[in-house]
């Protein structure tokens, strides 16, 4: 399953792109390449890649700027940044921007292939919440714990992602722009029956009847805002462990 995963390779050196494409295609991944950030973003708008392999120093748009843009379009993509400079500062900056790993050039391909495989095994989480700051915080928090995170701010976006991906866990805010979260919950049950669902809400009292109903219909857990972060993380861990034997 993971072998049909998609990888985007971006490097201003055409031969590096061709080589990485040959190697990754040979082991069964779908690979697209781009010679600069602008071409890469064009591709990302058409397809949400599982993994992006980004050269750090490129003319026009550097790898870090590209990744920051890419993240806004497709938050799921795990970024591996490649650099010819053994420079601690740029490496740290890339990691702070949310890139997963920084690899020195010339690339150790055995290590690269292991990392690609590892990234693809990271559980995929969908967060459906209309608060962008909360989503950004959760992205950082969960990414650090080894989850891949997709964000949806409203129902249609959530429906789109549920169509495209197979999630391990879906976090659903019970109060969304166009109604309550129970519709999203129903959609998860239809399109992603394997996914665990966690209901999130800041309206403990008003929305309690709704929360109780969704729990009765099969939601796995509820987390109240403001989050008890350790509790949220342990809930997610418990749920991923439960789903692991199936995958």
């Amino acid at each position, binding site marked *: 399953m993971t072998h049909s995963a998609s990888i985007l390779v971006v490097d*201003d*050196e055409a*031969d590096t792109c061709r*080589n990485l494409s040959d*190697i990754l295609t040979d082991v069964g991944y779908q690979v697209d390449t781009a010679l600069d950030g602008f071409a890469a973003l064009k591709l990302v708008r058409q397809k949400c890649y599982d993994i992006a392999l980004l050269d750090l*120093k490129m003319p026009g748009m550097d790898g870090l700027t590209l990744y920051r843009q890419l993240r806004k379009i497709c938050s799921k993509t795990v970024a591996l940044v490649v650099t010819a400079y053994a420079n601690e500062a740029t490496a740290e900056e890339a990691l702070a921007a949310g890139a997963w790993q920084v690899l020195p*050039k010339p*690339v150790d*391909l055995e290590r690269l292939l292991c990392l690609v495989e590892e990234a693809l095994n990271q559980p995929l989480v969908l967060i459906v919440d209309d608060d962008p700051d909360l989503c950004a915080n959760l992205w950082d928090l969960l990414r650090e714990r080894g989850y891949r995170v997709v964000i949806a701010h409203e129902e249609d976006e959530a429906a789109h992602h549920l169509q495209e991906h197979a999630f391990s866990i879906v976090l659903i805010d019970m109060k969304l722009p166009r109604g309550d979260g129970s519709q999203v919950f129903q959609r998860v049950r239809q399109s992603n029956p394997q996914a665990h669902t966690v209901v999130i809400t800041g309206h403990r009292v008003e929305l309690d009847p709704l929360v109780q109903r969704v729990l009765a219909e099969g939601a796995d857990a509820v987390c109240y805002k403001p989050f008890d972060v350790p509790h949220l993380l342990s809930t997610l861990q418990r749920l991923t462990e439960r789903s692991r034997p199936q995958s």
Partner: protein
Amino acid sequence: MNIEDIYRRYQELQVWVGWTEESARRVAATVELITPHLVALIDDFYDEIGRHPNARKVITGGQAQIERLKGTLRQWLRELLSGRYDRDYVARRWQVGWRHVEIGLEQVYTNAALSRLRIGLMRVLHENWSGDQRDLQETVRALNKLLDLDLAIIEDAYQYEYAARLQRSERLAAIGQVAGGVAHELRNPLNVIKTSVYFLLNAHNPSSEKRAEHLQRIERHVSLADGVITALSNFAKMPAPKRMPFAVEQCLREALETNPLPETVQLALDCPASLSPALADIDQVRIVFANLIRNACEAMPQGGQLSVTTRVVSGGMEIDVADTGTGIPPEYLSRVMEPLYSTKTRGLGLGLSIARAIVEKNGGSLRVVSKPGKGSTFTVFLQTEHPQETHRL
């Protein structure tokens, strides 16, 4: 610096300050008078050091170190009053300045502390002198001269050692800069080679076309890596110019021929036929023009106008190579001609520094003005065979 040179310098200084055998005898005669007061003078000296945080911080070994240093100062004072000011004496003074650089004690503190010591020595002399007052004055004068000489040698040693260390650290920084530039330029081809080799070794069922493609790629990138090394060593050993008169227009046209302009770049070449021949090495100047033309084109990725204009100036001619490109931000302008400095993502950053080195070796100069968003103009000055005036303004 070797001890003979240092000692010769010391002797010169002795002559300058009017130091004589008589001075030495007078200083030596104060030993018995001063010795009982040495401990108090030394304590006072270290109290003075203790009052300056920057001086105190070099004493990292606490009280035990201060006791050792007091022993050294006692020895220094004994030598000062010994009456023997030979090579060994001077060498030990030199050592003091060297040592201060080593431990990071700035020279101002040596000056301040020695001034303190001088005042103390004079006070002891005045308070305990029982002889003739004129003798006292002569003795004070001799001791002052000796202290001045000591201080001069210590300061000389300090500056010499300080400069030597600075040079060493600058050399290390330059090596670091070279290593960084070379690392980037070599790692890109190495990366391609490494990945092609990996593909050839590990691919499951590569077609023969694919195999050939990867082998050719390896060969191409070995040449690229080799080119990086060639560029560096060419920079390091630029041959001495063979300066002969030549027509600048022809040289410009040759440079333009080997570096064809992109279709989006328009050329405006203004080179009057009446221009006198330039006096320089045509092969080297062609490299300069080629570098400037290439840079101009790279500064105009969306296209623009490349204007090459020549004119007669006092003492020779000037050639402007102007683009309508991105321009150089003022903060980079002073650095663009430094070797291994580049604002581009590719390249070693040698082009402009090579251009400047060539032009200067050929008796000319290279300067730049630039406006971000408007473009840059590089101006080459070359001497002509028959300059209009003998001196450049």
